[in-house]
């Protein structure tokens, strides 16, 4: 009797689990995305990777803040010389929490650039751009250039005196490039003078062209990080981060372990992930 009750309960549980798992299995069978996510989350990183390694994801967070607040700003902003300034005033002073969204976008830009530089400095000092991660460094430099270009194009959009005249000079400086300069300046202005076409063009570049490129480059950047693995700090005695393993081994009161034993020791501690 008891046995059959337990079996029945177990069968119900099994059906429940199957029902919960069904959409996941359905997705996995058709896309492999679940396995991909599992691989991403449970891939191994060196045991002594530390707070310095969070600068990259912090930069990504800052970019996502820019993308989110940017989408909301685009709902209220009007990219026309006659209306742009008024719409910025409206967003800042009238729209509910508009000040927060615009403020986060304005200051998030600076935070994004600072974090880009900090992340770059970390990679440089850790020597993490060396073989086989050269390509990822190049993608990172491209992302830095894209970030600065976002800053340049976004600066014009409030269409106030500071932004207008800084852009006049900025475009003129682009015009000093040998041979190509006049064409670059002409392209950026969309004509002989800065006007409605310039604003629409900067807006399009700022919210479609460059963000698209940044999303694609971040995708490539992360793919390369996952494929090549996170580099351990240069002071590590071994690539896998010996300190962490030793610590785990010591807590278990074991010593002089060979590799497989050390491996099982971390499994006992936090290995439920695998």
């Amino acid at each position, binding site marked *: 009797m008891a046995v059959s009750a337990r079996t029945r309960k177990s069968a119900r549980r099994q059906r429940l689990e199957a029902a919960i798992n069904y959409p996941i299995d359905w997705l996995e069978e058709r896309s492999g995305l679940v396995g991909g996510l599992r691989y991403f989350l449970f891939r191994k990183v060196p*045991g002594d990777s530390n707070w310095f390694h969070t600068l990259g994801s912090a930069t990504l967070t800052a970019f996502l803040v820019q993308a989110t607040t940017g989408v909301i700003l685009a709902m209220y902003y009007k990219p026309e010389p006659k209306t742009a300034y008024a719409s910025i005033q409206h967003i800042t002073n009238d729209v509910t929490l508009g*000040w927060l969204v615009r403020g986060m976008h304005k200051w998030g830009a600076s935070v994004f650039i600072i974090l880009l530089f900090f992340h770059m400095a970390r990679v440089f000092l850790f020597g993490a751009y060396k073989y086989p991660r050269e390509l990822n460094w190049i993608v990172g430099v491209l992302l830095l250039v894209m970030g600065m270009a976002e800053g340049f194009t976004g600066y014009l959009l409030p269409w106030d005196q500071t932004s207008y005249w800084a852009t006049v000079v900025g475009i003129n400086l682009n015009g000093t490039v040998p041979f190509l300069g006049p064409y670059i300046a002409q392209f950026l202005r969309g004509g002989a003078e800065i006007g409605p076409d310039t604003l629409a063009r900067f807006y399009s570049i700022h919210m479609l062209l460059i963000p698209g490129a940044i999303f694609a480059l971040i995708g490539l950047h992360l793919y390369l990080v996952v494929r090549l693995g996170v580099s351990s700090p240069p002071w590590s005695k071994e690539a896998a981060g010996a300190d962490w393993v030793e610590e785990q081994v010591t807590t278990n009161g074991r010593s002089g372990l060979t590799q497989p034993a050390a491996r099982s020791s971390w499994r006992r501690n936090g290995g439920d992930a695998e």
Partner: protein
Amino acid sequence: MSAIDERRSQFKKYKEDVKDRGKPFYPYAMFHDTVMSLVVVGVIVGLASVWFYTSGENPDTCGGKDSCLLGPRYSEPADPGTTNFVPRPDWYFYFLFYLLRIFKWPDSVILGTVGIPTILLIIAFALPFLDIRSERRLSRRPVAVVAAILVVISMGELTYKGAVAKEALASEVVAAVPQWAQRDGFANDPKAVAGANVFAEGGCTSCHTYLGTGGGNLGAPDLSAEGSKGKGVQGLESYVADPSKFGNTVMPKFGAFASIPAKDAQGKDLGISQLRALAIFLDASKGPK
């Protein structure tokens, strides 16, 4: 074993080691990442709040004495006809902005606008191919350490100098006009004096200098003795209206001045445009006597 084979086998060993004895990204590294991301969002929200609550709806709230902690919400609306502006980029371009004070128009300004930025960019892209040793410990990478320190110091210095760069306030510049007229000897020419006032109020000194007053930005030259170069009033007028026709693509066009009548100190119409007055003033500037 050749160098490339050795690097390959080292990387293979790294992959195996990490797979065997690393820790999983979730939850260990992800915990750190999440905390850091929350800090980042917190800092951004904090900056936005301080910026908003220390500024006002009026663009010139941060003008005078009650200046805001993080600047105004916006400046005056853009006006292509008014040149009283400070062409100042966002702070992360200050190092380039200040670089242009070092190089003077027209001979070397291209080094500041194109030369140095291009070289820096090429070095940044090429870094993994310039530094091909596999050594990663800082104590054994003296060149990299020195280079990093130099880059940080020079970028920091240029950014700081760009941030505190002297801005010529219109009121101060206007106050200097009688002294200019005296020293350059055009005090008796009301048209030249009117032109000097256009020069002072119009924001020309944001970039140019005149007898020690002004910004000296973007490689713009000193104009105290511009009239002694023999360009003539007509020549100067067409230059200011559209400098790009004379190969100067850095200076903005100031043709808008041609449609504004010039007035003397008493408000009497002088019968010429502000652009013409400006050209007369520049032509009368033969250098301090």
